């Protein structure tokens, strides 16, 4: 089959002063009709830039400075703006990572989808409405008539992404570019959206350029794969051969970083529990005045768990499942309404604020986002020493201990003098973990230890140490 979209030796130049000169260097790709090509790479590999370059929607100062982009045999780089606009939407359509921000918050879904027809066809308003409703039906949105009138904030994340897909497929484009369309979604929704994209693609014979960092997605959906690193395509081929027999070292590294779903070998656990959580509940009440029209959300409902001494307990759930609320209840960032949280026999839930402050030496928390959990205006060393100072250690002593801890988590002790923004994401996570380890906590709550953007960092994170 002849390719419908060809990138031939395309380079994209970044403005001067960045950390590299090109976002894409000599990238060549080809996409045939009725196939799904996955472009895989870590953040900053230039994979999203590839999508923007094809649509010729590059940010200011970024330019294509070499190569050709052939769509149905025409070089897109040679088209003027008006011709290019005819290609966008009708010939090549695009869906984005974050459907909430990719939709205009002030205009209804139906209005925004209908705009596709308004721009590229002469249909009447009534016809546009009918077509839009049919599209919403096609992407299997529960109540199309309601969704038509809804504003983006009134839909769920999955529904919003469905609406985006409906919009992109409105004019039966030859090529669909999907820029990480499932990254911002929960796992179960992610699977549904992937299935939807594949079904629609099969039915319409659309060529899909699917950009992702997730090899799980690749395995599920891709016909062919191209792996990108630092703006270059390092490896490309059939999905089975790339996943089964990766040639390039970088590909192997990426694949190896995907954690296998295999339980670690069982080990003997202590009989004695360090922490028992019994019937903990937390409800949120929003809106309403004097009890009228109130909405009640049961964030955590009657949870009981036991954690043996020296053990690790994993709590898994989608966003909104209450796992974060539970974690925050345990360290009393949120006050639970009922239930007890016994740590060494002391009920944390019943402690006063003052008593809890001193109890914090026994229970510590590591946060999801290592950057957000460090005060940007405090030196890294101080951040680590702070807990010690609060609990009575003299400042110089605490700072010395911080240096020591830096060494323990594999950082240069001299780095205590630097500010958080001067570290990489992985290094920050080490600082956060040093900070939580500073106190001799007997129990540590680590909340989603690794950042979602980079896989290869997970295996090297020092989290297993001491936790």
């Amino acid at each position, binding site marked *: 089959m002849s390719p419908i979209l060809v990138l031939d030796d395309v380079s994209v130049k970044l403005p001067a002063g960045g950390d590299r000169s090109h976002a894409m260097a000599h990238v060549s790709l080809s996409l045939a009709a009725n196939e799904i090509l996955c472009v895989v790479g870590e953040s900053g590999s230039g994979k999203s830039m590839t999508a923007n370059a094809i649509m010729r929607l590059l940010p*200011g100062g970024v330019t294509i400075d070499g190569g050709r982009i052939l769509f149905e045999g025409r070089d897109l780089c040679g088209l003027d703006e008006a011709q290019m606009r005819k290609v966008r939407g009708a010939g090549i359509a695009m869906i984005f990572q974050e459907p909430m921000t990719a939709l205009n918050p002030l205009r209804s879904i139906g209005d925004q989808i209908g705009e596709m027809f308004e721009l590229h066809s002469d249909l009447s308003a009534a016809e546009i409405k009918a077509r839009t409703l049919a599209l919403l039906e096609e992407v299997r949105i529960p109540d199309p008539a309601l969704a038509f009138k809804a504003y983006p904030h009134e839909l769920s994340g999955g529904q919003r992404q469905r609406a985006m897909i409906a919009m992109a497929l409105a004019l039966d484009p030859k090529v669909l570019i999907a820029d990480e369309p499932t990254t911002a979604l929960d796992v179960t929704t992610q699977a549904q959206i992937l299935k939807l994209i594949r079904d629609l693609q099969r039915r319409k014979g659309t060529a899909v350029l699917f950009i992702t960092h997730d090899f799980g997605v690749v395995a599920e959906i891709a016909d062919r794969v191209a792996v990108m690193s630092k703006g270059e395509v390092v490896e490309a081929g059939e999905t089975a051969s790339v996943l089964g027999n990766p040639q390039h070292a970088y590909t192997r590294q990426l694949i190896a970083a995907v954690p296998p779903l295999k339980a670690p070998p069982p080990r003997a656990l202590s009989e004695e529990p360090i922490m028992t959580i019994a019937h903990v509940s937390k409800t949120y009440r929003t809106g309403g005045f004097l009890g009228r029209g109130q909405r009640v959300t049961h964030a955590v409902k009657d949870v009981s768990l036991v954690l043996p001494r020296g053990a690790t307990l994993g709590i898994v759930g989608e966003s909104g499942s209450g796992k974060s609320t539970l974690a*925050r209840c345990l*360290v009393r*960032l949120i006050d639970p309404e009922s239930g007890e949280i016994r740590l060494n026999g002391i009920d944390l839930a019943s402690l006063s604020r003052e008593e*809890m*402050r*001193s109890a*914090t*030496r026994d*229970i*510590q*928390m590591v*946060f*999801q*986002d290592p950057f*957000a*959990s*460090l*005060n*940007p*205006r*405090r030196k890294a060393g101080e*951040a680590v020493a*702070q*807990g010690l100072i*609060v*609990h009575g250690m003299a400042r110089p002593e605490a700072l010395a201990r911080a240096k020591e801890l830096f060494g323990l988590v594999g950082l240069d002790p001299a780095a205590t003098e630097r500010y958080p923004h001067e570290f990489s994401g992985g290094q920050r996570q080490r600082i*956060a973990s040093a*900070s939580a380890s500073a*106190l001799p906590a007997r129990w540590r709550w680590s909340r989603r230890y690794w950042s979602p953007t980079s896989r290869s960092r997970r295996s090297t994170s020092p989290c297993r140490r001491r936790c």
Partner: protein
Amino acid sequence: MDLVKLYFRSPPAVIGLVLLILVLAMAASADILYPRDPLALAGRPLIWPFSNPRFLLGTDNSGRDIAAQIFHGARISLLIGGVATVISIMIGITVGAFAGYYGSWVDTALMRVTEAFQTLPNFLLLLVLVAVFGSTITTVTVAIGIVSWPASARLTRAEFLSLRNREFVQAGRTLGLKDIRLIFGEILPNALPPVIVYASVVMAIAILLESALAFLKLSDPNVASWGNLIGAGRDVLRVQWYVSAIPGIAILVTVLAVSLVGQGLNDALNPRLKSR
């Protein structure tokens, strides 16, 4: 430092700084260049500017040297503007920090008061304050500070609201830090930059408020204020319009300088916004 380099990359910011230094220099040299009382009779009234070398900028309708008043006025404007800004920002930060950090009823109560100050036209409140406490330079300065804090309180509150649930604050709390430490040690330094930048707006408005008050003859009549001079010149506007025009330009330049410096600082602190 990066900030300095970023600041000097923007031409308007540099122009602002030069103008500000110029005004500061005028204020500093006033006593040396014009040691006499600027409000004392100096010569024949209503001499046009540049017609008599003794009075470069001419004299006003009471025969006072306009140039001397401009130089001494720079002091008054900067002094009133500066002190009023400090007062206003301090009130604003305190109110905003407590409202934003504690939320619930503390927030409701403090925001009610802020709203009251914002609903009441600030110049009207200024008139009332001056009517009640008199128009000495101290009362005028304090009054200007009192009427102009609500915006900085709102700004601080908004910053606190977005920062108080950030993970580094929660991390501080799980480490056992006390509220006061969290407010002033952890959150405030992060909330401060936009408030500091906003201080330039407060200062610009403070200078304008004082000049308006002086123009209405409600500010301290015993100091050489630019607004006083414009008010005096109003009586001879028909022919000797320069008496009003010259101090107005001085105010314009000062406010422009303060605003440009503030904007330059803002751009240097948020380079992202500048680059697009």
